[in-house]
Each structure stands twice: as structure tokens, then as C-alpha cells.
């Protein structure tokens, strides 16, 4: 090595460089050294001969003066390379050899680790995507969700009118900008026409400044201009990235071209980036294909239609913005045209960060999920500690020998830690693969109503997390056996003849303790999963007010002319449509509604009794639905009184149907049917009362609902609902064919099962329950494996003892009972400890439960039964083996 290196390199830095260089050139340097030492000895021998010694004596003297050759080599190597790394490499090689030798142990350990670590990475990725990662917008911490304080009338109470929006934007001081979107769009609300069969697509109206406010830049083209949100503007549209790729094969030339939307030529002004996923932020579980500027001038008389998002000025806190909005709120008009509508918004505007709005509600369940998966990892660690301990016991002699040969205790622990690190890193690599599969699967579950789901992926943070938990896991399950082993008495171990002798009660007690803690943790997992599962079953059991199975819905298109005679015309069209659809074999009943329950909703002012005084705010807003005769039957709703008929047209008496809550509030005496109420400025007769329907969510309480005849009020859309005894899918083709026959412009809309809509609504709960239950099952399996391992091991250890006892007359049954007794003892202690812990944990997750007490006796009893049975099974196998021990063989075997 030359010394011509720059002088600025200090001695120690240069040494470090040289040392690491030397690490990689061991072979050559070693050869160099032995050659040098050889020449050293030759020179010495020659010198000695010259001084008159005989050749033998000369050589002997030279060797003496030189000292130990091996030692000198070792010293030189230490001085030249990286001794720490050398030892590690040595340990690594040894660990790999040992692990490859013990294939079944390695396989089981790696598999367990892979599952445990994989589950952890997957959940971490979910938590990271939903809770941790900032929203994919510019300076997302400045974005706030602005809605009236929560109440029970769905979207209409979470939104503001176009006038209020404009006034707010003009009067506030805290915001850089406020944007909004039309909250009442349904899926597939526009038809892409012009090339063959009309294609349904989902479009959302957004205020012209929407994307600028969020800080989303188009990948090509431009965003909306402010004048494009005014009356008379040329129709324009921005495409969502997936739709652009799917429909136009990512053709960049689409920008500037005109496409036909509902027969209107519309210019594509730009394409949005892939990472902007409107659905995953604002409406989980739905896909949006395109955006058009909301025409505020058109919307002024539509009431509360805009959901608002604001961007606060830099340095303004949410609380300051809140105060600002509180001072603006009393000056907002519901509709500028009516002067007395100033101060219409009584409920305070509640601001929260957009992140909080999107994922705040998911924090508790996700944290529970994270804890569950963390518990799994702990169980995995305990299990492996146990396995390693058992293995260490059989390796006692190996360790004792190494200690006797001069290995330090630290060196032994280091060796064991290296082994566990190899195991856990291998497991982690495999687990990473599992997690990758899971996250990939989840990211494509468009039907799960969880925000940011599509952005779930194993990213750099997840990789770092993987390495961290792999190392911590290795330390956890490597250190216990390591310390245990290094404390063994060398003398004892070497003297001991190995199996047959009781190799220390302490060892056994340690393993029992580990198994007990495993059982206890499995207990907690089982109780948590059981409670959540019971809650989920309760949710599924809820009477929704309609019968979701055996019914399906499809969006239908018709043209009623949009004029004064529309009601009449609509009646004629729909009546004919329903007559023909009901004639299809298999269709039991059919009807049309504008908004399906659990899908979309809107609400108006509530019905009231004429002349009666109500306090302001006393009557909640009512969900309104425009329906045809037959709809209630097709949905399987329960009606008292009569359904609408085709005679309830525009010229007939104005009639409505109320739900029970509304009817009961207005007419506590129960005489609602036949009575008159006022609603939307007209007197209407109540012809029926319907059982409450869960309109906005499954788990909440229903609000007020009012049903109008589709001929007497204007519906916003049309969903055809058919009920059948057959599986509903079988009707899809014939119903679609019939609709197309009636209306050639009918778009190829999706034939949706009503059950699917319900499933979508409970999908977040289902998601959490499935995961937690899967973890619990895994936990129980690990606990069973732990019990099996310990009992089986103790049977092997006591083969001789059992042999002697059997030789002395103990029956097989007696031996079995003894072993099973041991098992039961372990399991019982674990279950008792676990039950105690479960009581605490169950109280912690009480907020996530539905209709299930945290102390639900069925869950606890089930858990005890299941764990007891599993432990008995795990103990029974070794017990049977014990009872089959042949005393002669066992005794001879010493």
C-alpha cells in the first residue's frame, strides 16, 4: 500500500479506510503475511546458523523467539481488518449451518415469523396510508372541512347553499380560499354518448376554484377558469386519470377535444393526476370519472347543495378560522332573494382539518387493529423464545463445550442473537412478500368504504418498519434463551448425560411461564375478536326497514320533457316501464325511486301540522324520496295504510307517506293516516305510515322520512328496483334488454344488488372484524403450538421416568391423565390471567362495539371453551405418545 495518499486524511480516518479495505482482501493479505513470516523465520535460522548453531537448534531457537505463529497471525488480522465484523460473519456462517441442519425447526420458525411480521407490515401500511401519511394535496395541513355541527338529516345538513357559499367567501378573513362540490351526485350520473351505446360515467360538480384550493395540478391541459362556473359558460370537463386511461387509452390529444355528455358537446380542458382520487378522500368506496364546474347561478334555488373545503391563510390555526367563521355565519343568506333568510344557519359551522374529517373516525378502530397485530408479534416472539429455549436445552453440551474452550458468555449470547436475527430477517423477507400481497389486494378493493384505501402500499416507511420489527423481534426471542444458556454451569452440563436427567426445574418453569403468557395474550385477542364479531353480527341483524336480499336496482333513463306537463308524462312512461318489467318471468314486483337508502339521500324542511306552533329547530329536516307505486313492495318495506297508485298524479290530491318516527312525533295519538300536514308549501294528506328505514347508515338511528308520488314532485334520478325469488343476477340481462327496448338511449348502467349497497355500508366494520378475527385465530394457533411444544418436550425429557413408572405398574390411562393434567394447569393459569386482562381491554374497545356489552358473557364463555378445547387437544397428542412409551425400550435407552 502506498503512502502517497493526501496528507489531509488523518491517521485514524485513513486507518478506518484501510481496515475496511483489508476486510475484503483477506485471502491475499493472509498469503502475504505467511510469506513474510516464512521469510522472517528463514532469516532468523540463517542468522542462528551463522552464529554456530546446528540447523535443528537454529530452527528451534528461531521458532521460540518468534512465538506462536497462529497467535501472531491472529493479532495481525485483528490489527488490520474489522474484527467485530469478522466475528459476526463467523457467527453468521455458523448460524446458517446450524439452522440448515435443523430444517424442521427453521421452517416452522420462519413461517411463524413471516406470518407475524407480514401481518404487522400490512397493518402498518394501512395505518400509514389512512392515519399518518398527509393527504395528497399541497400544504394539506391548511385544508379544513367546513360543515354545520352534526345532525340527523344526512347530506342536506352537512352542506351550504350557493348563496351562503359566495357570501362566506366574500366575508371571511381567515381563508385563502373556499371551495365546494355538489354533494348530491349519484354514481353513473352522466352518459357518454356519441359513439355507440351510451356509457354511464360519474361526474361531480365542483366550484371553479376547487382544484386550485386543494393544490392539485393537472397532468395535462388546465384547471377550470372562474368564469366557467357562471351562467352561459361553455361546457367543459376535467377527466380523472383512471377514466382517461380506461376510456381514452391515456391519449394526450384528448385535451382540447369535445366529447358528448348527455348529448351536450363538452370540451375536455385537462386531465387530473393519478394521485388525485376524489372518492378516496371525500366519498370512500366510490369512483369518480370526471369533474365539471358547478354553475352557482343554476344552484341558487336548490337549497343546501355544496360541501365545503377551505384553505386557511398561512399561520392561521383551525381555532382562529373557527372564530372567524362564527362571526361571518350570522350574516349568511340561505337565499339572497329572500331577505329574511339571513342568519338561516343556526348551527355553528364546525371546522376540522380535512385529514381529521377523512380519517378521524377511523383512528380508534385502526389503533385497536394495530394493538391486535402487535399482540400477535408478541405471541410470535414468546413462541419462538420457547422453541429456541427447547432447542437450547438440547444444545446444552455444545454451549458448555464452547464455554469450556474459552468462549465468553457474551460471545455465546452473540451467537444465539445472530441465529435469531437470521431467522427473523428471513421471516421478515417472507413477511414482506405476504404484506405486499395483502396491501396490493386491499388497494384494489374498491368496494370497501375506507378512505385512502387505493394508496395503501408497502413504501419506504413500511420497509424501515419491517427492519425495525425484525431486529426487535430477534432481540426479544434471542435474548431470553441466550441469557439462560450462558448461565448454565459448565461442569454440570458436561458431566450430565443429557436426556434422562432432569435438566433443571428453572428451565422448565421459564418455558411454562412463556406458554402461560402466550395463552393469556391469545385470550385477550379472542375476547376482542369475539366482541367485535358479535357486534358485527348484531349489525347484520339490524332490521333495516327493507329487505335487501332478492332485490336489485338499476339506473334508468327516460325523457319526461322537463316542463309543466312532466309529471303526467313521467307517470305514463314509468307506468309502462314497470308494467313491462313486471311481465318479465321471475320479477315479482318493481318500482322506481330517486335515491336508494344507504346509497344517497337529500332532505327538505319537515312536514308540520297546520296552525300548530313549533319551536325553531324543533322539527328535524326530513329525508325525501319520490317513488312510484310498487317501490315500497319491491324494496320489502312494511307499510300501514295504502301505497301510492297511478291515480296520485299531478291533478290528484297531494298525498304523502311518512315513516313511523315522523308520524309518531306529529300525531302521538296514532291517528296519522288520513290526517293533513303541510310540507314544501302545500297541504298534503298522509295515506300511509312506513316502518323506519335506515337511510344514511346501518348503525345509526333513522331520521324523518317523507315519500312523495313521483308524479307530484320532481325526482332527481330514477333507480328501478326489482324483487324476485330467483338470484337477482339472473334477471340482469332480461331487465336490461327490456329497458333498452323501451328506450334505445338507456345507458349500460350497473345492475346492482341491494344487498351489495348494504354490504358497502357495513364494509369498514366487516374489514376490521375480519382482520381482528384472523389475528385471533392465528394467535390461538400459536398458543396451541406453544402448549404442544412444551408438553411434548417434557414428555420426551421424562421418557425414562414414565418408563419406570409404567414398569412399576402405572397404567397408560394414568400416564395420560398426568400429562393432560399438566396441560390443563398451564392453560388454566393462562386463561385466568387472560380473562382478567380481557376485561380491561374489552372496556377499552367498548366504543367500537355495537349492541354488545364489553362483559358479554357469551363471548367470554366461548373464548374459555375454545381455548380450553384447543389446549386440551394440544396436550392430548403428547399425552397419547407418553402412554405408548414401552417401558423396556425407555429403560434400555439410557
Amino acid at each position, binding site marked *: 500500500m502506498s503512502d502517497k495518499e493526501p496528507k489531509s486524511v488523518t491517521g485514524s480516518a485513513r486507518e478506518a479506510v484501510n481496515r475496511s479495505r483489508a476486510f475484503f482482501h483477506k485471502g491475499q493479505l493472509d498469503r502475504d503475511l505467511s510469506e*513474510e513470516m516464512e521469510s522472517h523465520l528463514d532469516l532468523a535460522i540463517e542468522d542462528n546458523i551463522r552464529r554456530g548453531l546446528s540447523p535443528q537448534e537454529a530452527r528451534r531457537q528461531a521458532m521460540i523467539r518468534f512465538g506462536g505463529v497462529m497467535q501472531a497471525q491472529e493479532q495481525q488480522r485483528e490489527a488490520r481488518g474489522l474484527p467485530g465484523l469478522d466475528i459476526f460473519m463467523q457467527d453468521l456462517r455458523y448460524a446458517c449451518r446450524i439452522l440448515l441442519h435443523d430444517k424442521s425447526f427453521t421452517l416452522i420458525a420462519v413461517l411463524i415469523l413471516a406470518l407475524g411480521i407480514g401481518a404487522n407490515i400490512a397493518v402498518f401500511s394501512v395505518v400509514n396510508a389512512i392515519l399518518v401519511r398527509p393527504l395528497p394535496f399541497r400544504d394539506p395541513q391548511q385544508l379544513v372541512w367546513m360543515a354545520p355541527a352534526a345532525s340527523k338529516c344526512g347530506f342536506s345538513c352537512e352542506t351550504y347553499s350557493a348563496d351562503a357559499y359566495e357570501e362566506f367567501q366574500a366575508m371571511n378573513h381567515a381563508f385563502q380560499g373556499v371551495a365546494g362540490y355538489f354533494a348530491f351526485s349519484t354514481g353513473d350520473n352522466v352518459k357518454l354518448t356519441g359513439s355507440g351505446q351510451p356509457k354511464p360515467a360519474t361526474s361531480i360538480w365542483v366550484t371553479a376554484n376547487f382544484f386550485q384550493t386543494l393544490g392539485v395540478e393537472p397532468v395535462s391541459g388546465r384547471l377550470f377558469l372562474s368564469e366557467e362556473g357562471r351562467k352561459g359558460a361553455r361546457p367543459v370537463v376535467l377527466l380523472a386519470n383512471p377514466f382517461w386511461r380506461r376510456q381514452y387509452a391515456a391519449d394526450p390529444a384528448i385535451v382540447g377535444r369535445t366529447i358528448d355528455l348527455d348529448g351536450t358537446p363538452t370540451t375536455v380542458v385537462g386531465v387530473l393526476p393519478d394521485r388525485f382520487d376524489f372518492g378516496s378522500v371525500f366519498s370512500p368506496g366510490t369512483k369518480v370519472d370526471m369533474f365539471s364546474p358547478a354553475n352557482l347561478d343554476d344552484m341558487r334555488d336548490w337549497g343546501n347543495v355544496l360541501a365545503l373545503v377551505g384553505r386557511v391563510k398561512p399561520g392561521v390555526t383551525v381555532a382562529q378560522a373557527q372564530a372567524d367563521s362564527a362571526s361571518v355565519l350570522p350574516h349568511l343568506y340561505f337565499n339572497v332573494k329572500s331577505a329574511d333568510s339571513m342568519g338561516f344557519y343556526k348551527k355553528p359551522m364546525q371546522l376540522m382539518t380535512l385529514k381529521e374529517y377523512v380519517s378521524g373516525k377511523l383512528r380508534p378502530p385502526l389503533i385497536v387493529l394495530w394493538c391486535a397485530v402487535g399482540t400477535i408479534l408478541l405471541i410470535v416472539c414468546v413462541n419462538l423464545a420457547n422453541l429456541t429455549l427447547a432447542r437450547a436445552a438440547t444444545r446444552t453440551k455444545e454451549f458448555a463445550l464452547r464455554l469450556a474452550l474459552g468462549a465468553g458468555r457474551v460471545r455465546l449470547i452473540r451467537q444465539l442473537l445472530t441465529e435469531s436475527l437470521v431467522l427473523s430477517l428471513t421471516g421478515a423477507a417472507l413477511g414482506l412478500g405476504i404484506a405486499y400481497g395483502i396491501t396490493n389486494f386491499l388497494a384494489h378493493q374498491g368496494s370497501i368504504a375506507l378512505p385512502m384505501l387505493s394508496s395503501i402500499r408497502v413504501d419506504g416507511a413500511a420497509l424501515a418498519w419491517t427492519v425495525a420489527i425484525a431486529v426487535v423481534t430477534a432481540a426479544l426471542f434471542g435474548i431470553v434463551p441466550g441469557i439462560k444458556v450462558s448461565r448454565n454451569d459448565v461442569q454440570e452440563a458436561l458431566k450430565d448425560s443429557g436426556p434422562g436427567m432432569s435438566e433443571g426445574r428453572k428451565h422448565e418453569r421459564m418455558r411454562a411461564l412463556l406458554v402461560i403468557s402466550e395463552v393469556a395474550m391469545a385470550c385477550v385477542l379472542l375476547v376482542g375478536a369475539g366482541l367485535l364479531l358479535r357486534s358485527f353480527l348484531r349489525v347484520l341483524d339490524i332490521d333495516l326497514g327493507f329487505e335487501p336480499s332478492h332485490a336489485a336496482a338499476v339506473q334508468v333513463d327516460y325523457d319526461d320533457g322537463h316542463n309543466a306537463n312532466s309529471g303526467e308524462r313521467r307517470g305514463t312512461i314509468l307506468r309502462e316501464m314497470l308494467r313491462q318489467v313486471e311481465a318479465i318471468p321471475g320479477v315479482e314486483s318493481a318500482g322506481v325511486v330517486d335515491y336508494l337508502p344507504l346509497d344517497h339521500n337529500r332532505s327538505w324542511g319537515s312536514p308540520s301540522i297546520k296552525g300548530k306552533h313549533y319551536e325553531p329547530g324543533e322539527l328535524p329536516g326530513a329525508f325525501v324520496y319520490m317513488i312510484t307505486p310498487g317501490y315500497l313492495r319491491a324494496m320489502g318495506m312494511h307499510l300501514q295504510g295504502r301505497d301510492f297508485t297511478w291515480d296520485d298524479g299531478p291533478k290528484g290530491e297531494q298525498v304523502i307517506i311518512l315513516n313511523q318516527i315522523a308520524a309518531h312525533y306529529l300525531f302521538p295519538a296514532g291517528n296519522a293516516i288520513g290526517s293533513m300536514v303541510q310540507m314544501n308549501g302545500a297541504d298534503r294528506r298522509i295515506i300511509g305510515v312506513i316502518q323506519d328505514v335506515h337511510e344514511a347508515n346501518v348503525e345509526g338511528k333513522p331520521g324523518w322520512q317523507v315519500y312523495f308520488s313521483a308524479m307530484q314532485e320532481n325526482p332527481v334520478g330514477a333507480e328501478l328496483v326489482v324483487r324476485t325469488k330467483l338470484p337477482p343476477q339472473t334477471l340482469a340481462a332480461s331487465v336490461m334488454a327490456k329497458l333498452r327496448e323501451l328506450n334505445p338511449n338507456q345507458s349500460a348502467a350497473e345492475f346492482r344488488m341491494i344487498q351489495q349497497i348494504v354490504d358497502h355500508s357495513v364494509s369498514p366494520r366487516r374489514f376490521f372484524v375480519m382482520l381482528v378475527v384472523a389475528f385471533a385465530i392465528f394467535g390461538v394457533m400459536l398458543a396451541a403450538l406453544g402448549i404442544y411444544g412444551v408438553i411434548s418436550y417434557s414428555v420426551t425429557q421424562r421418557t425414562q421416568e414414565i418408563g419406570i413408572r409404567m414398569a412399576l405398574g402405572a397404567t397408560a390411562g394414568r400416564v395420560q391423565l398426568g400429562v393432560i393434567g399438566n396441560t390443563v394447569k398451564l392453560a388454566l393459569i393462562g386463561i385466568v390471567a387472560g380473562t382478567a386482562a380481557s376485561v380491561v381491554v374489552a372496556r377499552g374497545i367498548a366504543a367500537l362495539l355495537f349492541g354488545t356489552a364489553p362483559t358479554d358473557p357469551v363471548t367470554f364463555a366461548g373464548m374459555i371453551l375454545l381455548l380450553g378445547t384447543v389446549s386440551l387437544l394440544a396436550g392430548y397428542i403428547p399425552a397419547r405418545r407418553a402412554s405408548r412409551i414401552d417401558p423396556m425400550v425407555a429403560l434400555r435407552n439410557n
Partner: protein
Amino acid sequence: MTESKLDLLQGTLDLMVLQTLSVMGSLHGYGIARRIEQTSDDSVLLNQGTIYASLVRLQHRGWIAAAWGVSDNNRKAKFYSITRAGKKQLAKDAMYWQRLSEMMGRMLNMEAGE
């Protein structure tokens, strides 16, 4: 062998090697070892083999350089020579040792009542 003893020995040996090379010029490992033994009148109990750890260390720090060559009696051997950085280091270390030994000498000659 505890670490503190080893450290002292290491430092001492390194210094001896540097000094030897500085005085003798280019020398092979055996020559260095012999020279140290002779200079100390064989009062240093040196396993000659240990010198190689010292040599590689000094080489890594850039204080000495090495090259294969041929000895006077035609044997292939690795020859070491001190570098400029090595000379600087030697001066520094020599100063330190001088001060240390002077100080130790004074301490050990301390008399009562001073």
C-alpha cells in the same frame, strides 16, 4: 491479558518500530525485531511475531510504507521504511515519552519533607 496493559505495550512497540526505521532506514520485519532486541540488550521480552500486528497498524495509519525486496543474502523479504507522516508522529510520540519518563523519574525520586 487485560486491555490497559495491551494498550501500553502496543503504543510502546509502535514507537520502537518507528524509531528503529527512522534510524536504520529500510528494514524487514526480522531486522526490526532483532534491532529492538539488541538495542534493549535483550531486556525486552518480545515475541518477534507480535511485530507484524504493529507493522500493519503503522502501515494503515500511513506512517510507514512497505515493499517486497531482496535481502543482503539474497532472500525475498518485505522491507519497511518510515514516511514523512511517520517522522512527524515519531517526533510527537518521542516528546511525549520523554516528558512522561522525566516526570516519572521525578516522581520516583521524590523525597520526604520536600
